[in-house]
């Protein structure tokens, strides 16, 4: 069975989720391009979009269609060539609508796992829970007569464990998309040792066709992205803890968040990032890594917050749920104070924080530099001034950056990836950092 044939019947598990919906879109895009090619006119293509809620699946179809429409509008020149023989389709609008109809017809929403029993390729994007993943994958493996290949979106669970637990006979690969998969260019690819090389080729071809940047990671829990992020967040919590004597809980959280965002030129501070990903998701990943690595990777604080039902993450409309912070229009409004059990207004805390941190050596930010063609030169200058500054914020930031470099180097040392460059690529592409943690600035 060649790649084209494999893609004739695909299932996406967890298709209505945050990651699954993007993965479904990418599959629809990839497969629809095959399907509308006149060469394949006698072939039938199907994608089962599988999730638990019929309601969410209905929403999913609208979402997918809206993304496909945007893609079609941008790719009308190519689409016109694909529909050149269709004499009934003349205007761009007619061709775009025909494409949408053809592409959407490929998707079959389903709430039943049995749908995946006919597929040749299974994209798994259910929640980061090893037992659930194992159960679903093994059920499909047992009942699917086609010996399907599996692509898991796990961001932390070692692939060899899933392979072993679900008895997949080496036909699984880690294909870790970043959020949101439709636009995020990065995919971490985690191959099994002695795994299915044709499956590896299929993943790389798939990513290349979709214009993705593929970074190989070795099969060690957390891989590159979460391997870095989890250690980063644990260090953030540790630094906040060290401020306990002088600052309240809320103040220390805000201080480290401000430091990691403004002084380190990141798109968001480390605690806001935890809120964005979800404190519960972070805890899931920490659990997995803690279980599989010979390293103490855990945070009592996150567990305590979850016990108080403070989870972060996003509502279905994309707005943030309360976590370390609450937000209005994406901006931090209040800060959670664990000791007081309540949220404190930002403006009551920021003066003390800012006077402790001091000022930035230059008036630059992630936003101002992210599209600046001279950002490299400007960052060099900024960080050299930061290193010379006597302000607390500058000192703490340099200390933090040194630890980030240690974490990054550690990933290479532990064999998570082969090169410093891979670590930097993942942090720059997947986390939108302006610079990699392994740098000359500190």
């Amino acid at each position, binding site marked *: 069975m060649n790649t084209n044939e494999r893609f004739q019947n695909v299932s996406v598990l967890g298709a209505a989720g945050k990651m699954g919906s993007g993965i479904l879109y990418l599959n629809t895009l990839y497969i629809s391009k095959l399907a509308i090619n006149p060469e394949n006119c006698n072939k039938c293509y199907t994608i089962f979009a599988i999730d638990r809620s019929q309601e969410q699946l209905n929403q999913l179809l609208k979402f997918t269609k809206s993304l496909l429409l945007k893609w079609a*509008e941008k790719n*009308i*020149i190519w689409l*016109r060539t694909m529909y050149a023989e269709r*004499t009934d389709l*003349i*205007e*761009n*609008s007619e061709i*775009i609508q025909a494409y949408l109809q053809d592409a959407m017809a490929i998707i079959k929403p389903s709430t039943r796992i049995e749908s995946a029993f006919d597929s040749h390729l299974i994209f798994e994007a259910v929640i980061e829970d090893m037992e659930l993943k194992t159960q679903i994958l093994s059920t499909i493996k047992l009942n699917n007569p086609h010996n399907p290949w599996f692509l898991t979106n796990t961001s932390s669970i070692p692939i060899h464990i899933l392979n072993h637990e679900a008895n997949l006979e080496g036909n699984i690969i880690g294909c870790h998309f970043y959020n949101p998969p439709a636009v995020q260019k990065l995919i971490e690819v985690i191959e099994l040792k002695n795994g299915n090389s044709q499956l590896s080729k299929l993943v790389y071809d798939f990513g290349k066709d979709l214009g993705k940047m593929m970074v190989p990671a070795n099969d060690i829990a957390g891989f590159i992205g979460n391997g870095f992020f989890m250690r980063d967040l644990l260090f953030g919590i540790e630094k906040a803890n060290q401020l306990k004597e002088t600052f309240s809980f809320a103040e220390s959280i805000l201080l480290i968040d401000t430091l990691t965002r403004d002084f380190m030129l990141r798109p968001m501070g480390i605690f806001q990032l935890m809120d964005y990903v979800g404190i519960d998701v972070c805890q899931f990943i920490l659990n997995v890594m803690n279980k599989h690595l010979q390293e103490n990777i855990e945070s009592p604080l996150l567990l305590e917050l979850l016990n108080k039902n403070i989870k972060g993450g996003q509502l279905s409309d994309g707005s943030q749920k309360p976590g370390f912070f609450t937000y209005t229009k994406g901006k931090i409004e209040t800060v959670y104070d664990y000791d007081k059990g309540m949220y404190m207004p930002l403006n009551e805390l920021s003066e003390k924080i800012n006077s402790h941190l001091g000022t930035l050596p230059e008036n630059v930010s992630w936003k101002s530099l992210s599209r600046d063609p001279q950002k490299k030169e400007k960052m060099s200058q900024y960080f050299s001034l930061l290193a010379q500054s006597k302000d607390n914020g500058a000192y703490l930031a340099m200390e933090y950056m040194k630890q980030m470099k240690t974490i990054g180097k550690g990933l290479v040392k532990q064999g998570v990836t082969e090169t410093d460059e891979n670590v930097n690529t993942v942090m720059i592409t997947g986390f939108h950092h302006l610079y990699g943690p392994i740098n000359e600035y500190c």
Partner: protein
Amino acid sequence: MIQKKIYMVAGYNTVSMGTGRSEFNPKKERPGLEQYIQEAGRATLAQIGGAKNVDECVIGNFMAARFNNQSHLAAMMPSIDAGLRYKPSTRVEGACASGGLALMVGIKSVLAGTSEVVLALGVEVQNTVKAIYGADYLALAGWYKNRKKGHAYFFPGEFSDRAKAYSDVYGKEYARNGMASWFKNAIENARLCSTAQEFENTAADLMILGLTVPNGKNFVDHLTVYDCSKVSDGASSIAIVSEEGLKRIGISKDEAIEVVGFGQVEENLLDDPIDLNELTTTKKAVEKALNMAQITKEQLATVETHDCFTIAGILATEAIGFAAKGKGAEFVSNGNTSQNGIIPFNTTGGLIGWGHPTGATGVHQAVTIWEQFTQKAGKAQIAIPSNKPYGLSINMGGNDKTLVAIVYKKQ
């Protein structure tokens, strides 16, 4: 020679709205077709003593039926002023030459003696849809049977073929330099006119932008977006009057321009261009207009030409005869068409710099020449030598199919 004195007076241009204007936000509600018609129409009426002085209205528009779900625009003219109710009103359409046709209908009505004062107006509101769908609507200016095999961006595709032919025969770098120079001049002129769509353009090096290499994967093979006219919302209006009409509205001749020649020419829509490296129909229209005016091109002080694409601007310099065939790119690159050149073209930016609200463009060109000849052009004002009291406008519909060339005389 025209047997009767015909004047144009009391011109007005709305802002050419679209990308480039800081107040333009495609996600927010914007003025509709009727607001543009009313703004321009009322501005002209205010200068000519009100609607009571108007005998007749003409409105040029290309594609409101699709851009705005609105046809029957003649009946929108009385929305300008209640005084226009129950007066004759005609809507004309000739693709991007619709504005020019509106002027022609007005001129002919005055010539015929059926009207002494005609309110001529052109309008288009195009930013209602994304460019990819707008391209479908504008493609209706071509023969419908050519649409299927045409480019997704149909008209850029047609003129990309002309740019290719020009490059093939006269040299790629030579052609590209000419097109980039045309673009540069268009933007520099637009910066002098507050209603221009590119008025706020601050790009540091326009030549570098103009020299951008085309990418056929995203757009057409031989043109870039810098070679294209703008997608615009706007309206322009002007009064076309007889001597009697001038007396009626109480405006002296020196506040007006005289129409001394015109060439209205039609080519077969079903035919491909005779020669991609020549605007053959344009050439004929200009010849007719200059002959009727009994002047030579050397007596022109300024030209407003239909530069829907940079290559069309270059080919126009050749069609008028300022440059020999194949020498237009050089003529433009040498600065001859700039404000201080031998013959300033498109002094407020033309279709590339000022904007191209398709149905309004022909009228906008007349308004621009009226402003130049009555010292109302502000920062864009050029010197009009006393031995060159003439101006020429060229309004083109489709790929050199419907042509209106008009010669004006400064009073």
